């Protein structure tokens, strides 16, 4: 049926319109008056058009101005006591996971299996469908961390995994609890982080009936997990938990979800269950690489006059930083890393080119474009790294070392693939590496380094880069640093000065705003006694800052630096450079973060002057407990250098030193 047009001023889509025109006309036809949302690169054209006309549509940012009361502190004190009290129970109830399971119920099987997998900490939020599991938790030695939102729980488990190398564990209830973890699963999936998420499900007999708090969770999470399971019988539960951990931590790691109907956790096992994994199709590629391929690769590297090592998160995941450093130093091979590869190679080493890509250093990008042999280790040629693929590393032979065969030749045609574990392969390769004279190449790189250093203008307002640089100095480049997503993330990558693997905790592939605050807390749980700092932006921090309460409740002394420019800065930067400074939906009103932090029970300070930076950072580092440092920075600072989307890697916009 044709719908009649209610208003005469609405135009039907016409030839010559672009997608944005059509979309906005359709919205107008549907009488949409207000839209709620959040900007991002993929919807910039729409936002830009809204700035111009929008046919009666106004855009409001999702976040209303927040009003908080500080009256919650008493209940925290109470719950903290309870948690401390629970430590006694822990030591008393250590159970032997290998003991007989017959006669136990599903919830008990669950906890026994988790202990057998070595789980010490899990993050989550209770609810009706997981009540039996939470009841059993009371008897379990596993530390449970109650977050303020399931998304926060996933990012904490993710950061716990990233910072320790163990598997992160999350638990949430059915329906909304489960849908709230989707972003966290997708984040971990894109960055290959080992994680196991458990969700409650409605009773098996009610599945498919649109029962209260029911969602098709295996359906929703299938594209954002490495694998998922729906448990159909209590006798499968133990085996599936084992399979889930096995899949999460082997091969190319990733998140695995196990959906457990509530009746499966209540039902009792009448006999001993079969716990033997049944995964005939799962053959993870680990271990050593093909000797012949490695020989060919090594010969190619030795013959190269202008080689570059391009290193990704796979090196961190496989624990191959030491082998990588040995190979690089033995062959005098310059090393550039992706965002997730930061820390795989000490940036103070003269061979380091720091990060490459859209906001990488100019010398890294030039080196990649000019090299004659590009050796990719545990990286996947993401579009933010390669720029225009057709112009990427045009003169280079490409060697690709990766554990995932489907990564090979996915984006870039590879000359020599080597499939296997980066650590093993680099160790195999090390004795074959020679060091021919490459002084001309290294001199060329030094020249680029001198010509295009990372720089910023240190005057006037507080510059975000200088805060990060100072933090690096004061923490001796040794802190664990979490970030949100946006300009601050790029500045952190550029200016902190990375030395060690598992030091940066950041959402690379998915680019999840709001990751930093819970991630810092999760990393702190995994690294008691270490300094963990979240370098965050006002936009990212606001999304998940409620988790500061979790840090207060469990007395986790993570620090949070909010670089506040009252803009969604990265999107604003794109608008400044490519959309004629039309700041559609990016001005971002901020609350008094210090008041909120104090209301949450954390320490807090706010600075607005450059001269306060060092003292404020010192105060934050020394503070015993979680601390929020609100830094008001230069509002329209940009991240440079920058390769515009779709441009060649050496076609960079450099710092405009005004």
């Amino acid at each position, binding site marked *: 049926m044709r719908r009649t047009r209610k208003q005469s001023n609405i135009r039907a889509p016409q030839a010559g319109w672009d997608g944005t025109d059509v979309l906005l006309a359709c919205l107008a036809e549907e009488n949409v008056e207000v839209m709620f949302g959040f900007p991002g690169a993929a919807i910039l054209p729409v936002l830009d058009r809204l700035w111009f006309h929008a046919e009666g549509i106004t855009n409001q940012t999702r976040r209303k101005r927040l009003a908080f009361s500080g009256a919650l502190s008493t209940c925290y004190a109470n719950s903290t006591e309870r948690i401390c009290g629970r430590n006694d129970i822990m030591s008393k109830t250590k159970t032997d996971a290998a003991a007989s399971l017959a006669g136990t119920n599903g919830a008990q099987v669950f906890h026994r299996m988790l202990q057998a997998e070595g789980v010490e900490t899990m993050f989550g939020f209770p609810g009706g469908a997981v009540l039996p599991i939470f009841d059993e938790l009371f008897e379990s030695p596993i530390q449970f961390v109650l977050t303020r939102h399931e998304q926060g729980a996933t990012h904490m488990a993710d950061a716990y995994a990233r910072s320790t190398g163990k598997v992160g564990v999350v638990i949430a209830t059915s329906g909304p609890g489960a849908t709230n973890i989707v972003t966290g699963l997708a984040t971990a999936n894109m960055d290959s982080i080992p994680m196991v998420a458990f969700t409650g499900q409605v009773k098996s007999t009610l599945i498919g009936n649109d029962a209260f708090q029911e969602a098709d969770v295996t359906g929703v999470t299938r*594209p954002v997990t490495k694998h998922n399971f729906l448990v159909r019988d209590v006798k499968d539960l133990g085996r599936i938990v084992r399979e889930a951990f096995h899949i999460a931590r082997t091969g190319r790691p990733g998140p695995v979800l196990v959906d457990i109907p509530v009746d499966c956790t209540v039902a009792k096992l009448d006999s001993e269950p079969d716990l033997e994994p049944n995964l005939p*199709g799962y053959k993870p590629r680990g271990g050593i690489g093909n000797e012949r391929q490695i020989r060919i690769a090594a010969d190619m590297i030795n013959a190269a006059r202008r080689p570059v090592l391009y290193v990704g998160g796979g090196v961190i995941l496989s624990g191959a930083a030491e082998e990588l450093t040995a190979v690089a130093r033995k062959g005098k091979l310059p090393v550039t890393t992706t965002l997730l590869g930061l820390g795989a190679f000490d940036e103070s080493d003269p061979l380091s080119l720091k990060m490459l890509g859209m906001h990488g250093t100019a010398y890294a990008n030039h080196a990649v474009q000019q090299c004659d042999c590009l050796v990719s280790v545990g990286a996947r040629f993401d579009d933010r790294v390669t720029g225009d693929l057709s112009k990427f590393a045009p003169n280079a032979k490409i060697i690709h070392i990766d554990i995932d065969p*489907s990564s090979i030749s*996915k984006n870039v045609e590879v000359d020599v693939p080597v499939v296997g574990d980066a650590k093993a392969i680099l160790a195999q390769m090390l004795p074959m590496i020679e060091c021919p004279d490459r002084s001309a190449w290294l001199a060329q790189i030094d020249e680029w380094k001198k010509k295009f250093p990372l720089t910023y203008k240190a005057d006037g307002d507080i510059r975000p880069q200088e805060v990060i640089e100072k933090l690096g100095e004061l923490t001796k480049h040794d802190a664990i640093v979490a970030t949100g997503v946006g300009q601050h993330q790029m500045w952190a990558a550029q200016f902190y000065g990375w030395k060690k693997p598992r030091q940066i905790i950041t959402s690379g592939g998915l680019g999840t705003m709001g990751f930093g605050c819970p991630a810092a807390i999760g990393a702190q749980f995994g690294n008691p006694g270490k300094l963990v700092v979240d370098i965050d932006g006002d936009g990212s921090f606001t999304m998940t800052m409620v988790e500061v309460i979790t840090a207060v409740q469990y007395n986790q002394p993570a620090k949070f630096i909010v670089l506040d420019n009252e803009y969604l800065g990265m999107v604003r930067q794109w608008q400044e450079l490519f959309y004629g400074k039309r700041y559609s939906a990016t001005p971002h009103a901020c609350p008094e973060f210090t008041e909120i932090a104090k209301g949450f029970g954390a320490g807090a300070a706010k600075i607005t002057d450059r001269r306060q930076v060092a003292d404020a950072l010192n105060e934050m580092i020394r503070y015993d407990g979680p601390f929020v440092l609100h830094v008001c920075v230069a509002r329209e600072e940009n991240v440079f250098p920058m390769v515009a989307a779709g441009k060649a890697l050496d076609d960079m916009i450099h710092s405009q030193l005004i």
Partner: protein
Amino acid sequence: MKHVISAIVQNEPGVLAHVAGMFAARGYNIDSLVVGRTEDENLSRMTIVVVGDDRILEQVRKQLEKLITTVRVRDFKDIDYVERDLLLLRVHAPADKRPEIVALVDLFRGRIVDVSKSSVMIEMAGPEAKLEAFIDLVKPYGIRELARTGVIAMQRGKTNSEKDEK
């Protein structure tokens, strides 16, 4: 360019969703997808016809292999194989046209499996191209209804001379 891929998968609930979802998420075009039992009750065989160049085929194969529930993948590129598609087709067939149609069915080695006053139902198996040629020929009579199973495929056994070479 069409390619036939065969995947042996675990016979478990949700496996089809994993495979179909992967195809949708990665933007591969499926021409047909057939699932059926195999000689092993724990395993099913999926036969998938995908459209795309060699590069896409390679990615599809790797992505299929990456799925946890997929046990084995084979693409039939550069392999001698037999493919079969099964067709049920009901065509308008008044008494005066019926002999022509029956003759055509015989020519194509199909069978008439149901006859009514004005129509006949035809069953026919064969490679896709044969069925398509037949469909083209009966189209002028007026096709009432058409159902096809999609392609299944199997590699041919080695001939004696090939065995000798090995």
